[in-house]
């Protein structure tokens, strides 16, 4: 039991404590038919895949989580990600950098100006001539508009701001542009998705395309969708970025991860966003 707790499987351990050890015990399974609605807003967690899509149907990671974890996301008062959202709202109104301006000085209410942004990320930036994630856009605006230092990728400020901005798109369908200058990035991301890495010699597709729905030891494999990020993970005891999750999956298969914010992870992010097209943005989601 102590070992289980150390592994960060508190939930599973607690649930299993009451069961006899002589059985091949499976952890508490999710209710795969449950529907998600938050404060009366319907969240699409299952949608038909378009014809050229590798999956038959597109499913949010929420569907694969235990009933207890699922419940945490149905009410913003229970959702532990909201501490960071509140901090993000505070940062939105805080003057910073040589301009002495806050985000709000230029953009007004985030509820209006930032609505829909998360759902379209990552996207091509005309000025910089490159594909940019939400984190990149935030740091670009800090530099260009505020004259402020960039935030580190996994800093509490960046996580708070991406959570706060992401929330403004909650319930909206993920819809990224993959044509034009983004096409090259899309192809690269797809390539990375199917490339076997690490000593365990696995590609993302082995787990998240070929085996979603199956248990891999105590973990219920999902499609590895990114519509809920930054996500509050019970194991992390905090929010984490999309690129942190990619990094974790690569380390688990004994591969050297790419850097957060690298072209590789940005390309992979675009490809994964496309694989989840039509799912609602769930930011901030809760996962084990």
């Amino acid at each position: 039991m102590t070992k289980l707790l150390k592994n960060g499987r508190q939930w599973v351990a607690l649930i299993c404590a009451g069961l006899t050890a002589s059985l091949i015990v499976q952890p508490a399974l999710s209710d795969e038919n449950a529907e998600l609605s938050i404060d009366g807003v319907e969240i699409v967690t299952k949608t038909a895949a378009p014809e050229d899509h590798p999956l038959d149907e597109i499913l949010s990671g929420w569907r694969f989580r235990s009933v207890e974890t699922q419940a945490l996301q149905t009410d913003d008062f229970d959702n532990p990600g909201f501490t960071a959202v509140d901090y993000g709202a505070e940062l939105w109104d805080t003057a910073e950098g040589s301009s002495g301006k806050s985000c709000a000085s230029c953009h007004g209410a985030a509820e209006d100006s930032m609505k829909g942004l998360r759902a379209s990320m990552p996207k091509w930036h005309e000025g910089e001539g490159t594909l940019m994630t939400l984190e990149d856009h935030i740091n670009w605006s800090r530099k260009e508009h505020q004259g402020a230092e960039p935030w580190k990728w996994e800093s509490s400020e960046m996580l708070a701001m991406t959570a706060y901005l992401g929330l403004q798109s909650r319930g909206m369908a993920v819809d990224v542009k993959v044509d034009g200058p983004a096409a090259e990035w899309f192809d690269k991301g797809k390539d990375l998705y199917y490339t076997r890495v690490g000593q365990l010699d696995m590609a993302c597709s082995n787990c998240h395309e070929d085996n979603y729905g199956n248990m891999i030891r105590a973990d219920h494999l999902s499609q590895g969708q990114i519509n809920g990020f930054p996500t509050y993970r019970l194991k992390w005891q905090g929010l984490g970025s999309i690129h942190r999750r990619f990094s974790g999956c690569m380390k688990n298969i004994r591969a050297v991860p790419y850097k957060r914010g690298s072209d590789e992870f940005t390309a992979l992010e675009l490809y994964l966003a496309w694989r989840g097209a039509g799912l609602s943005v769930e930011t901030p989601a809760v996962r084990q």
Partner: protein
Amino acid sequence: MTKSLIYSLAVATMTFGLTAQAGTVAPDTVEIVDMEVKASLTGAAGDPGAGRETFADRKKGNCLACHANADLSEQLFHGEVGPELNGAADRWSAEQLRAIVINSKEVFGDQTIMPGFYTTDLGVRVTDKFQGKTILSAQEVEDVVAYLLTLKEN
């Protein structure tokens, strides 16, 4: 980029070498013919008791991640990515089981998710710590094979 990675990986493998113990078949010289590896990698029989532990150990075989196995019912959480291994010895010979554990791709095809436990044919960007190393040693492979041979239903 990928090409240069594969190249540096190849060099690393050659330099640090996979120096086999005397009498042990090195991973890059194992011969898998008709989905079989005929002889023991170490020249000796494996120890089924040790194999049972290697099978369950998350840092070694971690076979339970993907396979349910009634013989290890005292362990929590058996995966369902691969078939249940109850009765595996009724379905496969020792030579076939050895080939499956050494490099499952030679038996199930390139698309299988099951890792090769004694092969140098790995993915790109292997973590430094594991470069040029196989997941299991020759002895551990033989122990696991000996253990699998005890999984009989008939």
